[in-house]
């Protein structure tokens, strides 16, 4: 992640060097160049952050499209509230835990609250003096760093929404989202991106197959387990009844938006422009993997179900995107072909396996984000090369597996406990009656498509 900034670091050192030699007057050209570099980097980080923000629209459409029309208001409301909750949580404390300097390797302990730690961004490297030194490799202002990391944190929380859809109480989901983004996500994030113990170990996850997607996936899986399946999904005679989504148009549009958003998610993770080669390489590995995921899931579904199932094509695209998220900057484009292909096959088999295990995930969130997140993180060790733009040593498979396991056990165990506590504290699942009627009426007293009814107002 750091090599690309050698250019800007050099530029800064260069300007400092001239200043030192020339004693009094700094070189105005070098100063302007540095300012330009910071401006350009900041612009890219913010635009990339906006693209990632737009992924909220993608998630809202995919999830509501894959679910029944009677739960649309609920899913849309959840997708809005989760970003709002994430913004507050991450601003209030999440950022501090994740990127604040910590002495223990497990969580940040300085500059915890409201982004108030000392900071002299955009200074980089040794010139940086402040609380958030784990982010000293990118030469952008603190607020740009925060915004970009915030939209990542919110993505992890949004993943949960789909897996628990059509049966979770609105307030339970909201409380869980606050805690996930305030505490759970930042702690494991600190291990990897905040200079914690996994970073020390050499664990590599460029844009978050594990840090973002698997964490969201583990939290989603624990939620789906504690909640139990939707009524009528797994029948007493052993049959699995498909509960059809109400709008494949929404789901397809949402997936395209997510695909677009990923062009911010992965290349944006350089948090700078560099000489352009790094972000160009990553946008291509990302796109290739998504395309291969779509193709591979199509073929897999065609073989298994005898039809090219659109739902699986969409899941396969997302699988390819999640799979390439960790290795996108450390692998070649031919490797991206393989990573995407494997993701597309894995996701179809995973959806079928979760169904066999009677774990009900209405939108396939655990298959996409957890299973392919793990695969992508493993792929770093298999296909990684030190010559690639990431410019880091390729970690061993053991190192990658250590990270996957540690983050998985931590996130799954605490999430499971949290869901369970919420269940004890008044229940996380709506009543059977409300589930049949739809959460739109039960939770919100409203409908998404009221014009489809013959009605008499009064």
């Amino acid at each position, binding site marked *: 992640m750091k090599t690309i900034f050698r250019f800007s670091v050099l530029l800064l050192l260069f300007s400092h060097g001239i200043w030192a030699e020339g004693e009094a007057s700094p070189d105005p050209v070098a100063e302007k160049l540095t300012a330009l570099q910071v401006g350009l980097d900041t612009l890219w980080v913010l635009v990339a952050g906006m693209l990632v923000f737009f992924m909220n629209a993608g998630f809202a459409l995919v999830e509501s499209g894959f679910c029944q029309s009677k739960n649309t208001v609920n899913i849309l409301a959840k997708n809005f509230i989760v970003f709002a909750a994430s913004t507050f949580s991450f601003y209030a404390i999440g950022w501090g835990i994740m990127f604040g300097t910590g002495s223990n390797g497990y969580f940040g302990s300085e500059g915890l609250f409201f982004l108030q730690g000392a900071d002299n961004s955009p200074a980089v490297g040794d010139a940086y003096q402040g609380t958030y030194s784990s982010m000293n490799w990118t030469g952008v202002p603190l607020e740009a760093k925060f915004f970009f990391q915030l939209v990542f944190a919110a993505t992890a929380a949004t993943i949960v929404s789909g897996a628990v859809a059509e049966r979770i109480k609105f307030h339970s989901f909201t409380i869980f989202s606050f805690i996930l983004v305030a505490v759970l996500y930042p702690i494991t994030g600190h291990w990897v991106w905040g200079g914690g113990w996994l970073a020390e170990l050499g664990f590599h996850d460029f844009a978050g197959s594990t840090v973002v997607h698997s964490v969201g996936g583990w939290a989603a899986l624990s939620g789906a387990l504690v909640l139990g399946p939707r009524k009528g999904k797994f029948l007493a005679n052993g049959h699995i009844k498909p509960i059809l989504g109400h709008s494949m148009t929404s789901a397809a549009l949402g997936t395209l938006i997510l695909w677009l958003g990923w062009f911010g998610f992965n290349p944006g993770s350089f948090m700078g422009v560099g000489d352009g080669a790094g972000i160009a390489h990553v946008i291509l590995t990302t796109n290739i993997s998504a395309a291969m995921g779509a193709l591979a899931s199509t073929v897999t579904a065609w073989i298994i179900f005898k039809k090219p199932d659109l739902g699986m094509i969409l899941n396969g695209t997302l699988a390819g995107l999640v799979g390439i998220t960790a290795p996108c900057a450390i692998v070649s484009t031919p490797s991206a072909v393989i990573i995407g292909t494997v993701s597309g096959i894995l996701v179809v088999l995973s959806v079928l396996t979760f169904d066999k295990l009677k774990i009900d995930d209405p939108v396939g969130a655990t298959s996409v984000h957890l299973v392919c997140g793990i695969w992508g993180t493993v792929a770093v060790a298999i296909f990684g090369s030190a010559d690639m733009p990431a410019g880091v040593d390729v970690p061993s498979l053991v190192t990658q597996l250590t990270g996957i396991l540690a983050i998985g056990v931590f996130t799954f165990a605490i999430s499971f406990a949290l869901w369970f506590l919420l269940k004890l504290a008044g229940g996380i699942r709506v009543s059977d009656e409300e589930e049949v009627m739809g959460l739109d009426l039960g939770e919100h007293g409203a409908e998404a498509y009221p014009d489809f009814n013959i*009605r008499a107002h*009064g």
Partner: protein
Amino acid sequence: MKMIIAIIQPHKLEEVKAELTKNEIYRLTVSDVQGYGQQKGKTEVFRGHEYTVNLLRKVRLEIAVNEEFVKPTVDAILKAAKTGEGKIGDGKIFIMPMEEVIRIRTGEKGKNAI
């Protein structure tokens, strides 16, 4: 010949269909309908303002049967459409005499056309 019309809860349709099939009743017309009875309506909210929707969604079944199938059909619907929680809203079954049935393809009439 009788025409059996039943109004049931939408989420009971699958169970009713399965129960009818089990009793060898293979002909069925289904439509989405709305109406109200004892359940009255429900209150909804749009941007802060409450309003009452007094039409509820139901499913309407139409089954044309010969005399000997009246009882099995009614029993199947009763068995499968009842939510069994003593709550109102499970619907009703109406049975009415039917004068004639004509199969369009062959022009057959009466008992054989059902």
